[in-house]
């Protein structure tokens, strides 16, 4: 009994000795982590956080960039924004564009990722080929697709003519312009999500597929009951970053349609550009930016609530 007590006492003492050591170790690791993170945090604070806070501040002023007088106007810019029908047109267009583009990008990127991870000759070549458009600038992509979609000289309408379809005015029809811009953006941007999905696919243990196959699962069942559920973290990442990115679409409508026809492809960032850099109204432009950030935050939150709840990391 004494021996047992001695052992217990000894173990307890060892544990007590180890706890401060572990705490010290954790503290040291935390300090090291903060030191490594410090450069990013410093630059992020200076160049992003400060700018964001400054934009929020500017949105409460009648702030014209070159005018010395900048009167405080409170929430007047936001009041004007909510009564501005062009703002709501821009929001509607942006939501439609984002919904189409994120959905299309996710489906095509996932399809491509599954395809290039199969045992197919030249899979590596296809990965590179499918990723390549991501490397192009928005200017190159925009001008290329303007030509491809042209009613006069476009290769897409030329192809459709063999099916007996008359030239479609992709960029001049208010019902088609957003899908056309979305198609362009999907082509341009699905390479990066494809890489995310490839990484996700490679992280799924092979034995799960083997076990399912022994139980008689077919290809569709393997995809919908193993691949898709285990890719949820990747899907969440791709859709959340996609929504944030595509809500800020500017280059494609700016280069391809100038926001038209009418305001058919007029987006929020396009409106912000018009307000801030054409009308020089930085205060109102900042209100547009803040309102967009709030909308993006709401959509991101909804995504986390819907998809994120079912994600196991």
């Amino acid at each position: 009994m004494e021996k047992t007590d001695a052992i217990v006492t000894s173990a307890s003492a060892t544990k007590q000795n180890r706890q401060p050591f572990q705490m010290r170790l954790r503290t040291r690791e935390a300090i090291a982590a903060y030191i490594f993170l410090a450069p990013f945090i410093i630059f992020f604070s200076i160049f992003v956080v400060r700018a964001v806070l400054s934009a929020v501040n500017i949105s409460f002023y009648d702030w014209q960039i070159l005018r010395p007088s900048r009167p405080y106007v409170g929430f007047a810019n936001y009041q004007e924004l909510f009564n501005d029908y062009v703002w709501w047109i821009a929001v509607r267009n942006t939501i439609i564009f984002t919904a189409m583009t994120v959905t299309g990008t996710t489906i095509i990127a996932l399809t491509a990722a599954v395809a290039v991870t199969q045992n197919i000759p030249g899979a590596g070549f296809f990965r590179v080929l499918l990723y390549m458009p991501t490397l192009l600038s928005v200017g190159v992509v925009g001008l290329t697709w303007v030509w491809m979609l042209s009613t006069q000289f476009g290769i897409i309408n030329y192809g459709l003519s063999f099916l007996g379809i008359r030239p479609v005015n992709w960029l001049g029809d208010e019902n088609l312009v957003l899908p056309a811009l979305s198609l362009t953006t999907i082509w341009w941007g699905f390479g990066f999500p494809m890489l995310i999905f490839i990484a996700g696919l490679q992280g799924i243990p092979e034995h799960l597929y083997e076990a399912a196959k022994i139980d008689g699962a077919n290809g569709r069942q393997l995809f919908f009951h193993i691949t898709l559920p285990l890719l949820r973290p990747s899907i969440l990442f791709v859709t959340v970053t996609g929504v944030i990115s595509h809500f800020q679409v500017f280059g494609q409508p700016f280069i391809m349609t100038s926001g038209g026809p009418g305001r058919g492809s007029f987006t929020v960032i396009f409106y912000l550009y018009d307000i801030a850099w054409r009308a020089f109204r930085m205060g109102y432009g900042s209100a547009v930016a803040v309102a967009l950030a709030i909308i993006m935050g709401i959509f991101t939150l909804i995504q986390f609530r819907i998809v994120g709840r079912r994600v196991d990391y």
Partner: protein
Amino acid sequence: MRKRSSLAGFALFLLTVVMVFALSIASTGAQDATPIPEPTAIVSDLGTGSMKISFWNGLTGSDGVTLNDMLAQFVTENPDISVTTEIIPWNTLYTKLQTAFVAGTPPDVFMLHASEIPQFASYGVLKDVSGWYDTNGGWFPWDDISPTTQAGMIFDGVTYGIPLDNHGRGLFINEGAFEKAGVDPNVAPPTTFEGWVELFQQLTLDVNGNNAASPDFDKENVAQWGFAVGEWPRVNFLAALAQHGGSMISEDGTTVTVNSEAGVAALQNFIDLVYTYNVSPPEAGFDTWQGFAAGAVAVLPSGTWFRNFAAEQTDIEWAAWPQFQFGPGQGTWFGAHTWMLPVGLEGEKLDAVQTLIQWVSDNQVAWAASGQVPARLSAQAALDPENYPSNIILGETFGAYGVQDIQHVAVQEMYAALDPELSAALNNQKTAEQALNDAAARMQQVLDRNR
């Protein structure tokens, strides 16, 4: 798994086809018989002189090449001065200028349109150059520019600019398209809307060769259009608005009048050309310059700057006509590229900039090679009719009945309200009245805010 692999292979095949198509277009560009012009250098360092001048402008077309050629000659004749030119698309130039003024690093000299003088002058960033005109003892002869050009240089009684040119609008006709339609290219231009419609109908041909006046005309398969409303609709509209006796804002500058009867009639003219008479494609989705180059447009309303494109990048026999006349009066839009200086420029740098502007002003005849019309009347009179027919024909109309942009500190914001509404009307999304009422409501807000 074999089934999945074959599906995956098919998906890969489809994606690959799209990739290869698009990437090959992106990498090679259009391949046709038209010669590819030399790109304009964005930044050019001209001369090696110790007095360095920085100069920003938005002359991204062939006019930028012409100006750089002139500046190269200038630094040869003035070896103490060197010039660094930056050619920046106009909208980007406005943005860059703002940030440069805030940062205190504007260029030594820059070029804007006269219509932008009120906006920049109201911020107090432009230098008063009244003293450079001979009316105040300077070197530039005030009476050697037209009264409308003179008016464009002034804001609140102060002269802020030295004009380089008058650039504006007229018509470029494809003589081959006229002949194909059986119309004599030497026909006198009509003077009424009805007359123009009749001409455009004759010039608009379907794939079977029927013109738009024919009962057999197939409007879904047009091979050659008589006209194209999509070529910068705002300035077309401004011309027609003036022809109908209208204006953008009232004379006292307090009320938007763009949605007057004259405005609606002017816009309705263009809508009718597309949707009633089928002589023009809709505004959106039709490349007017390439359409003209491909022989698909017989009469293109365009600007003086179109001359070099027509001459150098198409093999079309073309001629310049004065602007169309859709209303009872005449009218055509024009503007002026204008030299401007930042308010803080002083000393030797100011002297060097003045030397540069004076040299270019004295040699404005050479500027005609850009397609634009020299601002100085003496230079206009000295142009060779053989080489510069479009400069002369269109230049005369600017002096006779040209209208400029409205003079207002928020002109860009007002145009940002007007442009989408014109586009909506020309693409059948709104009636002329709806579009102009919507535009006028937003423009009036701008006017009221800037009163």
